[in-house]
């Protein structure tokens, strides 16, 4: 199964989840009813002048009341939670768990190492570099959360940063990235939203119980026992809800972990990395525990078991047992964990991280020799070659540019500089506009970095646009608005939107929407190709014209024939402007994963048909893949 297959499956799993959820609500409602009836009967034993005098086992009126109340709490809670999650994206989850954003310009050796590992992994797979959060926990754990690639964040505990070696850390990060590729992160976000309503019942129950206890001292004669009964009832029901919620989580979560482990091995082609990371967790006293009140709610996001509970048998765990996971990667594993010497390990890692990581000369995949099937297989499945390639890209990036990209202050200048036209006359117009719209200090920084960025070799330009993402997300809302305005003005300045300008604008602004706007998951609207054909026409026309000029007719027709039968002719330039292109990508992103696969395949075919990939085509292909939320690894371009 490939990337698109997993995406499709994740969608179906979400449907299963919804059915389970409805089932759970039904069960809980019945449980609430039962508890109320029993509670009322018990209450009557103590109070004879009770305000309630029901001793029937079944009363429709009572049942309706209780159903309405329970549904209100659960559905209201879920709706509220999904709403807040879609506002905050992965960041909301990270902050809920007490995570602190690691500044992209952080200088500490271990912090830097972590940021480098994440950056490599992101560039290798063609995802925007996600912001990294640190959880101040001594246990070894990590998570990825978010609805779409642009609002996804990676969280890592302090214990993992200090105790894992670079290879082990890379294994863990690769595992988390595979959750993003497989659509697990988005599914887990929805799962958390849905389950919140259920856990809310238990939270309310516990809240009522503790409230009763704390007010015991102030009350003089004893309040109506009904309050006590209600507290008790809600507690019982809450516990039932909790158990059911755990069952649902367990049902969905465990298999995904094996899958992500296997994928991590595939990405890094280094089974030792992730296997050793798991062994370290096994031999470490704190294991992968996360001590935080919200850890239970988010337990299914984590790399390892985050919660230790009284029912700690495998049956209830959100994750498969460590021994099983290790044995699937390393069949020779005997099931014995060596005790982890934390001091030595953390010291060795400090020392190792201080030494700059070595890069061997990469064996690059020349796209001209690769057929489109091989490239398709790389989507959401970056091999070690891509990782090597990403390291080469990061190594080739001048240190000054890298520094600029990592600082929220100068990252904007880097984007402005990327958007400046190579043509001196156009550039002059753009600079004049920028001087008027942008912050004067940032304008100076732009002039400062201009030389370095315009002399950047072309294949580094899109990776640079990916690298600036975490830094740009550090802006405040008002700073972002100014930035957005300046970028818009810069592009329109010369009254001519170039393809590259448009690509950068689309990638950067679209991804920042996750941070500064709403970031809800994309709904699948299209299940058939027919309504999408006009958009495909636009896409392939622009692609063919960019890569082959006037000879684009043949590759265009071939590519179109992969999508639909019949005669297709290229659109006129007036019908294939960037506004059409933008619209086409927005619509195509709402297609079912299998349709996206066909579109991307056709686009790829159009590009490689003459055996050479020009930088312009390659960049456009990346923008298309990005617009469809399909992570396409960097390609070697002619």
């Amino acid at each position, binding site marked *: 199964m490939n990337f698109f297959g997993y995406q499709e499956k994740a969608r179906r799993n979400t449907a299963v989840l919804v059915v389970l959820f409805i089932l759970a609500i039904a069960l809980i409602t019945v449980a609430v009813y039962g508890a109320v009836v029993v509670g009322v009967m018990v209450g009557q034993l103590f109070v004879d002048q009770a*305000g*309630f005098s*029901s001793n029937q086992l079944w009363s429709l009126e*009572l049942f309706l*009341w209780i159903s309405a*109340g329970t549904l*209100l*709490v659960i559905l*209201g*809670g879920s709706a*509220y939670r999904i709403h*807040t999650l879609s506002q*905050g994206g992965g960041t*909301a989850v990270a*902050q809920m768990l007490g995570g*602190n*954003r690691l*500044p992209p*310009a*952080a*200088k500490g050796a271990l912090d830097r190492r972590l940021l480098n590992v994440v950056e490599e992994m992101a560039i290798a797979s063609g995802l925007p570099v996600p912001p990294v959060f640190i959880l101040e926990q001594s246990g070894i754990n990590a998570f990825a959360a978010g609805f779409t690639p642009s609002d996804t964040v990676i969280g890592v505990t302090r214990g993992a940063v200090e105790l894992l070696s670079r290879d082990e850390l890379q294994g863990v990060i690769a595992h988390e990235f595979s959750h993003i590729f497989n659509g697990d992160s988005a599914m887990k976000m929805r799962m958390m939203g849905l389950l919140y309503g259920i856990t*809310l019942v238990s*939270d*309310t129950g516990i*809240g*009522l119980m503790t409230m009763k206890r704390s007010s015991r001292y102030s009350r003089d004669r004893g309040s109506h026992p*009904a309050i006590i009964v*209600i507290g008790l009832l809600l507690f019982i029901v809450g516990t039932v809800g909790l158990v059911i919620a755990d069952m649902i989580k367990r049902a969905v979560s465990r298999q995904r972990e094996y899958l992500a482990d296997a994928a991590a091995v595939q990405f890094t082609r280094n089974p030792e990395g992730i296997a050793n990371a798991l062994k370290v967790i096994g031999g470490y006293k704190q294991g992968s525990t996360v001590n935080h009140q919200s850890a239970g709610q988010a337990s299914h996001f984590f790399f390892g078991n985050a919660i230790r509970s009284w029912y700690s048998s495998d049956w209830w765990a959100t994750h498969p047992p460590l021994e099983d996971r290790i044995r699937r990667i390393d069949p020779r594993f005997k099931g014995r964990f060596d005790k982890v010497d934390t001091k030595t390990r953390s010291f060795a890692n400090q020392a190792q991280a201080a030494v700059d990581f070595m890069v061997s000369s990469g064996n690059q995949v020349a796209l001209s020799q690769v057929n489109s099937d091989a490239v398709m297989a790389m989507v959401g499945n970056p091999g070690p070659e891509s990782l090597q390639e990403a390291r080469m890209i990061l190594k080739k990036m001048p240190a000054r540019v890298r520094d600029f990209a990592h*600082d*929220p*202050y*100068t990252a904007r200048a880097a984007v402005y500089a990327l958007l400046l036209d190579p043509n001196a006359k156009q550039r002059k117009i753009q600079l004049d506009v920028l001087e008027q719209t942008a*912050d004067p*200090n940032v304008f100076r*920084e732009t002039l400062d970095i201009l030389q370095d960025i315009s002399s950047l070799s072309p294949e580094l330009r899109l990776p640079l646009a990916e690298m600036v993402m975490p830094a740009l997300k*550090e*802006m*405040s*809302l*008002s*700073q972002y608005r100014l930035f957005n305005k300046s970028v818009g003005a810069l592009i329109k300045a010369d009254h001519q939107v170039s393809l590259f300008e448009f690509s950068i604008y689309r990638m950067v602004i679209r991804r920042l929407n996750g941070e500064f706007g709403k970031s809800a998951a994309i709904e699948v609207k299209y299940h058939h190709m027919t309504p999408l054909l006009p958009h495909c026409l636009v896409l392939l026309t622009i692609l063919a014209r960019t890569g082959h000029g006037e000879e684009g007719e043949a590759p265009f027709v071939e590519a179109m024939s992969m999508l639909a039968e019949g005669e297709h002719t290229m659109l006129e330039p007036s019908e294939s402007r960037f506004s059409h292109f933008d619209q086409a990508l927005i619509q195509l992103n709402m297609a079912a994963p299998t349709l996206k696969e066909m579109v991307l395949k056709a686009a790829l075919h159009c590009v490689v048909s003459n055996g050479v990939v020009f930088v312009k085509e390659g960049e456009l292909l990346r923008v298309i893949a990005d617009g469809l939320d399909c992570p396409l690894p960097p390609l070697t371009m002619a």
Partner: protein
Amino acid sequence: MTALMVVLGVIIFLILYIVIIYNRLVKLKNRFKNAFAQIDVQLRRRYDLIPNLVETAKGYLKHEKETLENVIAARNQALSAMKQASASPDNAGAVKALMGAEATLGGALLNFNALNEAYPELKADQTIAQLSEELASTENRVGFARQAYNDEVMVYNTQRETFPDTMFTGMMGFKEAALFEVKNPEVKERVNVSF
């Protein structure tokens, strides 16, 4: 029976409502705390540059020991204030202390810069010029990070004072956060020594 249900409904509604208020404030608090981490990075960068600058300048400024010592002392004080503030950015006192230390440091640096005019050979030194340039750029970055922080603090403080949140903020322990403002440091009158 109905009365009981109504009471129950009201209680649940209230709890839900308070949960919403609480979560919203926590989210905003986290936002400004994260924004503070940015200031932290930039200030650290700045504090790292200053000793280099002073060390290089020492060779030229044998007779201006006091000014140099003032810069270093102010820098050390600011560094320790920053460590305290970054440990708990929601503690308005710590942030205000950092603001004070920063103002002192700004003043000391201004005095130091004034020396540039008095010692042309100092101005001509390549390393000094480069370090000063870098310091100025860092200053801008600090300003940018501070702006982001202040934006987030403002949103938090506004939400905190909005009804009905304001009824619960005291109970839940959401204290007012301090804006990070810099007052223009006053240049201390240079004492003219006359013999």
